[in-house]
């Protein structure tokens, strides 16, 4: 016993190192499975406060660009309203099943292997885990945990996330993933060989998840090749949104998610 104690006392720093190093490894492993709510995360009080202050200061620097973007977006919406008016005599059989809340992105990363984003809305704005985040011209990610005033979002630029996507005007879907290479390119996998498309075609979100409504634009086909063995296409998609320069995002609140989830669970 004495020898054991002596050993511990002699190797104090080695043991301290091993303990702290294993804690770090455990935290790292935990961060690679994003489903767990994390101990060390940027939604914690102090770090989100400091990031928020930083956002308040730095957001003034790109007010001009931001204004231009909003003007452009206004214009697009105006056009859409006009188009809608034309088709308003078509009766609407159902109420919209999604609503949107605007949010500001206060911290964004895009050059790591697994990227996360912090937005300034949280549980008090009734934003919860599993809600999708869209951008004016694309999608941003999915909320993984939310504190009272902030939410942490797993970015689409994260190798752990894959998103249901399809070709516009077709119902054949695949899964969209990031290969951690460039922040403006993603890969659409598992699209069956029977799909017909060409370079430049638009990729939109598929309707097969409750998170994103279908037909949100994502990007265009840049390059593709067909795996002869599996019979699936692998498509390089170039994104519409510049993920390195985003400020404004929209949280997609699915109104019917509870009902649909109950149904899904009941079937199993």
């Amino acid at each position, binding site marked *: 016993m004495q020898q054991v104690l002596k050993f511990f006392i002699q190797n104090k720093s080695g043991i301290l190192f091993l303990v702290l190093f294993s804690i770090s490894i455990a935290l*790292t492993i935990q961060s*690679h499975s994003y489903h767990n709510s994390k101990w060390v995360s940027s939604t914690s009080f102090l770090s989100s406060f400091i990031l928020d202050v930083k956002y308040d200061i730095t957001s003034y620097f790109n007010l001009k660009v931001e204004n231009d973007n909003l003007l452009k977006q206004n214009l697009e919406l105006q056009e859409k309203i006009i188009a809608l008016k034309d088709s308003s005599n078509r009766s609407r059989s159902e109420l919209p099943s999604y609503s949107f809340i605007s949010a500001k992105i206060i911290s964004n990363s895009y050059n790591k292997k697994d990227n996360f984003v912090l937005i300034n809305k949280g549980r008090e704005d009734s934003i919860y885990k599993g809600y999708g985040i869209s951008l004016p011209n694309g999608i941003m990610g999915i909320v993984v945990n939310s504190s009272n005033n902030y939410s942490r979002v797993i970015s689409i630029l994260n190798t752990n996330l894959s998103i249901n996507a399809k070709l516009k005007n077709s119902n054949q879907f695949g899964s969209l993933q990031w290969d951690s290479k460039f922040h403006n390119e993603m890969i659409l996998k598992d699209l069956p060989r029977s799909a017909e498309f060409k370079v430049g075609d638009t990729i939109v979100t598929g309707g097969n998840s409750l998170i994103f409504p279908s037909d949100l634009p994502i990007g265009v086909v840049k390059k593709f090749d067909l795996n002869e063995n599996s019979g699936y296409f692998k498509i390089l998609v170039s994104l519409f949104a510049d993920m390195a320069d985003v400020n404004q995002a929209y949280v997609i609140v699915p109104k019917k998610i509870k009902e649909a989830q109950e149904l899904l669970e009941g079937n199993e």
Partner: protein
Amino acid sequence: MNDIKLKFLFQFFALVLVQVLIFDHVYFLGYINPYIYIAFIIALPLKLNRNYLIFLGFLIGLCVDLFNDTGGIHAGSSVLIAYLRSIIVRLSFGYNYDLDTLKLRNVKLKAQLTFITIMVFAHHLIMFSLAYFSLNYTVEILKNTLYSGIFSSILIFMTKSLLKKQ
């Protein structure tokens, strides 16, 4: 003694804030990110108790992780270089020095540079390995370590020589 403690406390917070608010958003040539907060571990007095050093290394890494949402990659890599610091000191300065009286700025410039470079590269290698956490990305890990390592070493060395004069 209290003044010295206060000085290191100030350095700790200043380096964490400078890292997360400025240098995490510096993308030199598009993707090279410098990590200068390890200057804290490099600059702590050489005679400091090894256990304190390891604990402080862990703490500063964890703070950076907290802001970056990276789990424990900075904590792990900085605790490792804090643990290895005494060995790296011996490697780069030789065995002729008495650690209790030695100060970093009294060492020859070449030895200082060696010390900083080894510390930075050891840190970056472990950090990028933990960040990618897969052998499939070996090339990316080595590439990032090399580029970021050179950038961080230069920055840390410059900061040290700038601060010394005042």
